[in-house]
């Protein structure tokens, strides 16, 4: 099928300067560290990164930020105990930040993957994060109009995958991976285990292979 890549470098080939990159993970759980490292190695910059957080410690997304490759971060929760790389860049005015409520982040990517043009959402009504956005009252409740977030590429981490691209995740490391996989033009997955076709239970596949363009086994 040609989806299985020999290594992370081959898996991220083709990502261009200025791309919008969806990066999975909630903190480090589900963060595709090997793919992000490969993206750093690729040398592209001016990226817009969509991820729940803005990097933890010095690995994964934090390393990408430290390398100066990111122009803008769209996330729900940048400020954390170990988000010092982002904090420093932000305070130095070297990175742009768009804060999006976590549910909107997820739902806007789902909309991108599901062909929804926009949706009326109850989150953020009356708050600064809805400033300037269109609102509408439906059945007596106020909603904010939210638009899809598409990615040029999604980098996600999964527990196991097969050569068709079917993926399963592990515990709360599932988080954003399945949603991001649907929302990008090209989806790349790092998997702890590559298994043969037929080894994943069809009832338990979380991301069907149609959403995965490339995958690479990275081990534990």
């Amino acid at each position: 099928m040609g989806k299985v890549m020999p290594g992370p470098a081959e898996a991220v080939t083709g990502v261009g300067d200025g791309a919008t990159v969806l990066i999975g993970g909630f903190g480090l759980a589900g963060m595709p560290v090997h793919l992000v490292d490969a993206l750093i190695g690729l040398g592209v910059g001016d990226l817009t990164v969509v991820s729940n957080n803005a990097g933890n410690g010095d690995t994964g997304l934090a390393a990408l930020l430290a390398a100066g490759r990111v122009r803008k971060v769209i996330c729900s929760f940048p400020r954390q105990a170990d988000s010092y790389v982002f904090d420093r860049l932000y305070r130095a005015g070297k990175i742009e930040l768009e804060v999006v409520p976590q549910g909107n982040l997820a739902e806007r990517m789902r909309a991108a993957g599901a062909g929804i043009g926009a949706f009326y959402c109850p989150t953020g009504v009356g708050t600064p994060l809805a400033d300037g956005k269109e609102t509408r009252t439906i059945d007596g409740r106020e909603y904010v109009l939210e638009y899809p977030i598409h990615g040029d590429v999604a980098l996600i981490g999964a527990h196991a995958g097969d050569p068709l691209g079917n993926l399963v995740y592990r515990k709360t490391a599932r988080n954003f991976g399945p949603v991001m996989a649907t929302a990008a033009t090209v989806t790349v997955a790092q998997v702890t285990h590559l298994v043969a076709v037929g080894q994943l239970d069809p009832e338990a596949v979380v991301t069907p292979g149609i959403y995965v363009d490339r995958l690479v086994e990275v081990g534990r």
Partner: protein
Amino acid sequence: MTGTVEHPDRPPLDRDEMARVVARDIPDGAYVNLGIGQPTAVADHLDPARGIILHTENGMLGMGPPAVGDDVDPDLTNAGKQPVTELPGAAYFHHADSFAMMRGGHLDVCIMGAFQVSERGDLANWHTGAPDAIPAVGGAMDLAIGAKEVFVMMALFARDGTPKLVPRCTYPLTGLACVSRVYTELATFRVGPDGVRVVETFGTTVAELARRVPVIHRLA
């Protein structure tokens, strides 16, 4: 842009040959939805080595051949509610996920029957408009706007002898400008913004077709 191929001296395609011609035009590795009825037969002509994966809108990727005998399982059917089988690497999902996949533009090809196709690719295949008809749309409108390419299989002429490839559909529409190829017993066509182009004829010539079907023009 290659020219039209005419086979005036052979008989028109029979149903099995039509299914084979359609199958030939599906790209290797494509994700494909086969509509109810005639398109189902396309599956018989897909060599497994080509890696084409079938989607059924009732919640499955990796659909296999019809089930017979002991393999019949009432919990495993295609969109036409006929018993089918599961191939290795299959995945099941619920209806909202199945249609998100479809409407989000992830399927490469869907194949449907039609009452009429217009020269700009409008599709009419869900309702005859007859006052006593019970309307039923199923997933046709979702497929029409969702799949990257919509292939139509139909007879070129209705029972009353009028062409089904028309300047403008007179039946209620399923989708606008969505059909890219039309397969009939007498000819295959590409449909697009530039109008209709005859790809291949069977038992007739373009000149003869053009006399009977006003929208047909031979492209330079």
